[in-house]
């Protein structure tokens, strides 16, 4: 089996991030709780503890002339603004670009705050992908894409209805997160989060009234006990411990 011998750089070369062992957070606003990202390793879908799920969320933009490329351009430029209220995405000002690291401050069920992050591993005109770090509730990749008329995101046909898709290929990172998914509230919170995001995107393009859909496939039902030690990095536990310190610092900074 010979090595791929094409001397020209592949067409996808500029769309991929470069490899890193550990994440490095750039400048983010003072109000952000920057925890559980700096120095953490990115996690592939194979490195989590729980069942491996492929979850695909979709919404159709009926009665608008917006193209997949326009959707992705707006989404990449204004990614945080489409998130549900109470959740913050602190990314670079330039928007979503390969290699960038963002800090996420999320509101969990029950109102608890969680600080984690993502790394942009891929971005082109019709899609972009994030990879999660150690401690995130999921280990894996999430791909955001738009396509024409329900065709695959790679189809070049710009006619018809544009369909926006979020596809997560993820495992619960550790036994605690996996328990929340098995009990149902973890998946429920995740599904609501992405449904709300899709509704916000549809509203931005004046295509309100469409309801998102979800297709879930369990790719691997087994848990990986060898990865149970991931709980050491659990961002929910670490955020809960750190939260009083964060607010004290902000208070003293103000006074």
């Amino acid at each position, binding site marked *: *089996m010979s090595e791929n011998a094409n001397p020209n750089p592949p067409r996808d070369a500029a769309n991929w991030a470069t490899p890193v062992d550990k994440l490095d957070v750039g400048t983010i606003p003072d109000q952000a709780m920057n925890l559980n990202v700096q120095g953490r390793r990115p996690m592939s879908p194979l490195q989590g503890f729980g069942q491996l799920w492929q979850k695909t969320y979709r919404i159709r933009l009926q009665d608008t002339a917006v193209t997949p490329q326009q959707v992705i351009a707006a989404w990449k430029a204004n990614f945080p603004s489409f998130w549900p209220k109470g959740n913050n995405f602190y990314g670079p000002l330039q928007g979503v670009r390969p290699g960038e690291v963002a800090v996420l401050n999320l509101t969990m069920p029950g109102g608890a705050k969680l600080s984690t992050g993502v790394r942009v591993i891929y971005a082109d005109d019709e899609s972009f992908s994030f990879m999660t770090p150690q401690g995130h509730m999921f280990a894996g990749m999430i791909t955001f894409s738009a396509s024409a008329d329900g065709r*695959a995101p790679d189809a070049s046909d710009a006619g018809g209805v544009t369909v926006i898709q979020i596809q997560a290929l993820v495992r619960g990172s550790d036994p605690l997160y996996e328990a929340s998914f098995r009990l149902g509230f973890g998946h429920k919170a995740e599904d609501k989060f992405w449904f709300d995001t899709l509704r916000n995107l549809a509203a931005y393009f004046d295509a309100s009234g469409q309801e998102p859909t979800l297709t879930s496939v369990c790719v691997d039902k087994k848990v990986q006990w060898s990865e149970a030690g991931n709980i050491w990095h659990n961002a929910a536990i670490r955020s809960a411990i750190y939260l009083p310190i964060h607010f004290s610092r902000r208070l003293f900074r103000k006074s």
Partner: protein
Amino acid sequence: MAEKTAAFFAKTRWEGETAVLDLHGEINSLAEAALDAAYATAEQGNPVKIVLNFAGVDYINSTGIALIVGLLARARAAHRPIAAAGLSEHYKEIFTITRLSDFMEIQ
């Protein structure tokens, strides 16, 4: 046996008890059906190992990587070793970024 889509096709051949999937073209969401079919063909022969040969691949996007992760998860669930061959330096780098290289032998 060859499984084909517009810009991608996969051919399954045997080297002893190892099934080799020769992949050609672009691995993106359009490749899903052909890739799955080729993998299923290989699995039917109960190989001791599956090798994905990327020598003929000239494009992989993030959806394509997700497809490969899916195959790897299926192989791991079946305790079947899986390896990647014919990767250019660029694609070796992508396998490092996505940490696929932690779980696949790179030949």
